[in-house]
């Protein structure tokens, strides 16, 4: 196995570890730290693929992805958390132990459903593809099992990191223009969600989405 393949495996492992750690920690500030680590791992995956397949434009994409996902987005979420101390805990709907076991099942599911894709091509990138799928599923789990608006943003970012990783690993990334379009969309979505969460707090005094089931006049 070449050094490139080893590095790619390592980056993919770190990517998955960060997703698990986000599920594990209750403190949203700790989750943002792991989100930053995951963004860095994603950028590393892009750089390694760029070096491996001689795609210089992947370096540009990697720089953009690294800046946005490892620095800007985690910092935005962190600032939103620090604005209000009560929102630090992520208040999961199912307890953390059960969601960790669910994540184990999801990872196995991702490996099983990705088998036909892996068999198409015997490269290291293709073999790491299930990691991206697993992170998509874990992101979805975080998104549906957390009550607070901010931890749902974390889940949304996790989901999107997973999708981007799948794109990198399966097809060495989408075209540059599309990648930047998606990144810009993501930035806007997080900014809008932040404003929305801040408004919710101002109006309802909390960002627990369970309290917003009914309409009032």
């Amino acid at each position, binding site marked *: *196995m070449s*050094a490139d393949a*080893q590095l790619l*495996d*390592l980056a*993919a*492992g*770190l990517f*998955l*570890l960060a997703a*698990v750690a986000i599920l*594990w920690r209750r403190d949203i500030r700790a989750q943002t730290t792991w989100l930053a680590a995951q963004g860095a791992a994603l950028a590393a995956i892009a750089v390694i693929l760029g070096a491996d397949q001689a795609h210089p434009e992947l370096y540009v994409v990697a720089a953009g992805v690294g800046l946005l996902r490892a620095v800007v987005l985690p910092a935005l979420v962190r600032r939103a958390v620090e604005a209000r101390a009560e929102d630090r805990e992520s208040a999961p709907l199912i*307890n*953390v*132990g059960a969601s*960790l*076991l669910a*994540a*184990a099942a999801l*990872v*196995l599911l991702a*490996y099983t459903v990705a088998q036909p894709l*892996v068999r198409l091509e015997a490269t290291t990138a293709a*073999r*790491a593809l*299930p*990691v991206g799928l697993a992170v998509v599923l874990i992101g979805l789990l975080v998104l549906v099992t957390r009550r607070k608006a901010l931890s749902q943003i974390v889940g949304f970012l996790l989901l999107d990191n997973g999708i981007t990783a799948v794109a990198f690993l399966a097809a060495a990334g989408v075209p540059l223009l599309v990648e930047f379009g998606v990144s810009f969309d993501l930035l806007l979505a997080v900014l809008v969600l932040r404003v929305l969460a801040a408004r919710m707090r101002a109006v309802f005094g909390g960002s627990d989405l369970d309290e917003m089931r009914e309409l009032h006049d």
Partner: protein
Amino acid sequence: MSAPILLSLAQALLVLLGAPLLVGAMRQLRARLEGRAGAGIAQPWRDVAKLLRKVPQHPDGTGAAFRFAPLLGVACTGVAATAIPLISTRTGLGAGADLIAVVALLTLATAALALAGLDTGTAFGGMGASREMTIIALAEPAILTAVFALAAKADSTNLPAIVTAALGHGARLASPGNLLAAVALGVVVLAETGRLPVDNPATHLELTMVHEAMVLEYSGPDLALIELGAAMRLTVLLGLFSALFAPWGIATAADPAHLALGVAAFAGKTLLLGSLIAAGEVFTAKLRLFRVPELLAGSFLLAVLAVTASFFLA
């Protein structure tokens, strides 16, 4: 006696003599970091020597479980120390040096101690035993699964075989499967040796203690054996961890130069890991007991991921 058997005995003796020193060094480091003078590295040995001179005392109504638990603890850990390739891969147990057997031996020591805690019939003993069993029941699947991730790569659960294979492929150590297994096993080692954040080794506060609650009724030579057993357990588990994830320096040949290097590497790695734990404990608070299952479930998940990664990724 053949050379491998002598080597195994030497390993057990090294662990027996070195374990209290390791605990002493960890306490000293923690004391210094907290701004205290500390009692010195040899204090655990002085404690053990003092306790051994005292008259044995047994509470009324206790039976064999209470009597034999300290001995069984030291004996099990000693046998585990002969099986794990701490200083050399040519240990005397051959096929018996199996990872699953080592895990079973270490669990047997814990189970014996829990029985002793129940045997005293006091509230604290029972409470400590029940807590310890809860933790062990959650830690055991994690440790075995993490071990399977490593065994799958070496095609064997034989410890010397795993370590020899890892020494042969240095780059394999940085694979994602190994890293995940290392984190999982690290958490389990903290839980099994009763360190922070699972149990606080320095406290005797009734509501929070786990290990200390079980051994509350022991005194004199029995307490000395308990302390010695706990220190040996820590040394053996740290040695197992370093042998699996950082096997550099473990002798594969039987000549004196390699063996001396093996002893030095074992002492250095164990001391380094112990210092890391001690320094980390200064900054960590004990986890609420009801949060411990969460920690161990996370460790189990990482172990499962390690197994999947070692099958699919590399």
